Every structure is written in C-alpha cells, then in structure tokens.
C-alpha cells in the first residue's frame, strides 16, 4: 500500500498527480474464503479491515451488490456521538468513539473526523428531565456530557432561535463536546484501502442470491458471479438484512424504512456544531463544503425504494426553520433516501443465527454511521472467535425472546 503523507503529495505533484496507485484491486472471486462478508458499506469494510488487522484473517471477501459505500454509508448525515443512555449501548458507541479518535492515523486516510460537538435540544420540562438523567448516566459511564441551559446553548449557537417567541422555546440541551461529524465516503474508502492492502478481496457488482447450507451450517453463498465457498459468513447489509435472512430461512425482528436527508446550496460558515432536536424533530450541521446537511425521521411505511414521501421532507424543513429562522430562504440542493433496518428496541443486532457459521450485524436503524469502526471491530472479533465479543453480547437476537431488550427508543436523544 502506498502510504499517504505531505512528502508524498509534493513528490506526486512533480509528476502532475498522474501516478497515484489505485486504492484497492478489483479481483476475480476465489473458489473459497475463510470468511465472507456480505455488504460493502462502512460496517462491512470495517469488519474486513479489523479481521485482517487484529485477527490475522486475510482470506476474506467483501461481497457488494452495487459499489463500495453506495448505500447508507453515502446517505447518512455523518453525525458521530456516544451519549447513549443504557450501559450496554453507551459502551458500544463509546468504544466506537475511541476508535474514531485515532481512525485517520490508523487508516493513513483522512476521514475528516471533526469533533465539533453535538447539542441535543430540550423544549419541554420532560425533555430537560430526560436530558439530566442521560447526562448523569453518560458521566457515570465516563462519557463527556453536559447539561446546558438556554443561555449557554445560545452562546454556542448564536443563530439558533432561543427566544421565548418560538413555538417550542429552547429550554436547554445536552452537549457532548467530543461528538461531531466525519466524511462518510472517506470512511468507506479508508477501510476498503486498508483491508485490500492486507489481502482482503473486495468484490463489487456481486450480488448474493442465496446461501449454501449443509446440515444447518453455512458453507458458502450463491452469487450472480457463481458459487463461493466460505467457512464463516457475516451479513452486514443494513436495509436488506431481512431479505438475506429470508434466503437463509429465518426472520429477523427488523423493519426496513426509507430515511430521507437533504443538503442545501453551499453557504459561508454559519454553523460550527451539530444541532439535534427530538421535539421539533430535525437535525442539522454544516459540511466543510458549506452546505447544510439536514435530516429527521423515517417514513413510517416499509420501503426498499431508497426514496420517501415529500411530506416527510416538508416536516423536516418546518422543524429546521422553526429552530433557525435565518435559514428560511436557503434553497435545498439535493434530497435522497436510504433504507434503514429499524429494530423494536432501537438497538442493533450483533449475533449468531439459527444457521451455524452465519452471523448478522444489522438493525442499526437510523444511527449506524457513528458506530462504523466500533461495529466492525466487535463484529470482526465475533466472526474470528465464533462467539460474541463482550460488547456485542447484549445485542444477541435472543433478547427478543428472553425480553432483555436494550430500550434506547427516545432515551438517547435519537431523533426518531
């Protein structure tokens, strides 16, 4: 792998930047791999990277039906935070946050991780009580978190309408200074390049059409490029997880919904942090390019179409304008949808399945991007050892039968 550095940039400038090495190969599938990972998004590529790096398992293929990071990795609003309420989820997301903090150096790839802080606004007394509770829970778990009053919020975001005139006046917020945003494509590309350099085959335009299962154990997959054998298979397919589970002969407690996001025309720097509101229901940040990155809730119906209804976009922008009257005449540039796999308790599934050797990493719902490195890290350990990593153990699929749910719905400042 060609390492990137300031010196390299100068060196390549002398040859007009025409001799940069390709970041990953485009290999022909082998007959068999030790591990096959289905899904070439951030989580799948991170899993492959950590399998190779931490566990020395390099006979690995990542199978992607489209192109790298073309699903939810490219469609989210890039927010990274770890201020979750319950111990189990806080541990998982904080593990991820710690990996984010060294990720650019680890990958030798600038993922543009910017710890600009995230505010979760409170607009009612109950919001403020929930915020206080969550901030205290975060601090007990060693996560940086503060409860702010309206005046402190106004100092951080001068353009936010914190006046009493607002329909839902801002009463305060929780504030995680270490939270922020990252460049979503760079995350997928960085993990892909790192995995490829360690020998992982990344097979794009390869769609899994079925599983080869022998005596209750997975032995490979059928694809549009022929059958490929595998000792272990990990599915990291987000919205399409349910479809894959059906192919393997079981159901998952997931529902796939469209989640829409949009960006505005580029503006001069005006918002240097991330603002989320559960109550008026929208979240916003400004990218380095200058466009406002905006999102809100899912469309309520099942959908695999990577698009949603106009009314959802309208509600989202109503919320943004309610919070930021200054944006009322900003024009929106692009709008899109991704398919999120939502779980009844709003927590992921990192689990073995009824089929031996087949593991699923799914159910991240509306908030998977922030977990990308952590999810890959613990799922790689789970695949390598054949049993759940301690941080993944509470997220077994069994919890929907034992009742030991990790109920993060609404409790985490998750805007949905």
């Amino acid at each position, binding site marked *: 792998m060609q390492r990137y550095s300031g010196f390299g940039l100068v060196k390549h400038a002398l040859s007009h930047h025409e001799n940069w090495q390709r970041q990953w190969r485009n290999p022909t599938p082998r007959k068999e791999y030790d591990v096959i990972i289905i899904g070439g998004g951030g989580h799948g590529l991170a899993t492959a990277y950590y399998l190779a790096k931490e566990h020395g398992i390099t006979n690995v293929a990542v199978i992607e039906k489209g192109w790298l990071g073309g699903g939810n990795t490219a469609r989210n609003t890039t927010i990274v935070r770890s201020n979750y309420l319950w111990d189990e989820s806080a541990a998982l997301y904080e593990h991820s946050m710690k990996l984010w903090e060294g990720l650019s150096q680890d990958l030798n790839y600038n993922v543009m991780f910017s710890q600009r802080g995230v505010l979760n606004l409170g607009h009612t007394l109950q919001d403020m009580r929930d915020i206080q509770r969550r901030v205290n829970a975060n601090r007990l778990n060693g996560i940086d978190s503060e409860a702010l009053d309206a005046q402190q919020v106004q100092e951080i975001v001068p353009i936010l309408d914190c006046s009493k005139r607002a329909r839902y006046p801002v009463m305060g917020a929780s504030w995680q200074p270490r939270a922020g945003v990252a460049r979503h494509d760079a995350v997928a590309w960085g993990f892909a390049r790192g995995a490829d350099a360690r020998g992982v085959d990344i097979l794009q335009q390869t769609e899994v059409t079925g599983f080869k299962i022998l005596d209750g154990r997975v032995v490979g997959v059928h694809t549009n490029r022929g059958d490929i054998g595998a000792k272990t298979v990990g599915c990291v397919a987000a919205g399409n997880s349910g479809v894959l589970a059906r192919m393997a002969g079981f*159901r998952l407690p997931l529902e796939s919904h469209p989640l829409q996001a949009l960006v505005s025309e580029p503006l001069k720097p005006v918002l240097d942090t991330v603002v989320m509101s559960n109550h008026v229901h929208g979240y916003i940040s400004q990218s380095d390019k200058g466009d406002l990155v905006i999102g809100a809730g899912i469309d309520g119906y099942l959908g695999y179409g990577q698009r949603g209804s106009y009314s959802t976009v309208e509600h989202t922008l109503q919320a943004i304008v309610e919070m930021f009257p200054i944006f009322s005449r900003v024009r929106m540039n692009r709008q899109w949808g991704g398919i999120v796999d939502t779980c009844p308790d709003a927590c992921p599934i990192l689990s073995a399945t009824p089929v031996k050797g087949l593991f699923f990493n799914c159910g991240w719902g509306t908030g998977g991007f922030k977990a990308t490195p952590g999810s890959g890290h613990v799922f790689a350990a789970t695949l390598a050892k054949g049993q759940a990593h301690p941080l993944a153990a509470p997220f077994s699929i069994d919890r929907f039968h034992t009742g030991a749910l990790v109920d993060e719905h609404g409790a985490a400042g998750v805007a949905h």
Partner: protein
Amino acid sequence: MFHIYCPYCEEHREEEEFHPKGQAHIARPAEPEACSDEEWGDYLFFRDNPRGIHHELWVHAIGCRKFFNITRHTASYEILETYKMGEQPTITAESLAREEKAGHVQVAEGGQQTVGASDAALASVKGAQG
C-alpha cells in the same frame, strides 16, 4: 407521495391524511399465557418485512379515523388494492406468481379499489416476483 383510496370514505385522499401502522393480519395468540417465550417474542417483535408484496395496516387519521388494509409493493411502492378490516386480500405474492405463470397479470382489476397501476409498475412487480 401516495394517493390512497379509503375503502370506508370511498374516495382517493392525500397520503398526509393517513398513518401507516405496520404489518396487517397478525393474529394475537388466543391464549397468551400458554405461549412459549419464542411464540410470544415472535408475535411481539418479528415481522415479514418483505421486498415485494406487503399487506399492511393504515389508519385514515385525519379522515374517518378507521383502520383498513393496503396491499402494496415495497420496492415500487405501487398500491395494488385497499380493503376493509376483516377482509382478506385478493392480490398476494402467491396469486401474482400464479398469474405470471399463466401468462396474464391483471393487477388493476376491481377499478376503484386500485390506484392506477402503470405498465412499468406492473413490470416491476412481476420482476420482483421472479
């Protein structure tokens, strides 16, 4: 944006008047106390979530406030029929597969119960069944 035919109001109305309420035809176990953990968990949490034909419950929230059912394709989003509570769908994944085998797909039968299905949408419905 959906244009949904409410079988009670007998009119097509805008999507914003309605709320989706998830999978339809889920039977509550007759004796919950007698259920195993697996049966009860399956009933509470596990859904079909198909990429294809889906029967789902909607409520006409800002209209007659009645619940009814929609048969819809989850990739093309085409609404194939709407029908009242207690009724069974006339279009299912199986019935479409049978008709496709027989060589004649006729989804838009029944006139007013169906939002006009275009040829392209029908083709995508057929394709997804394959």
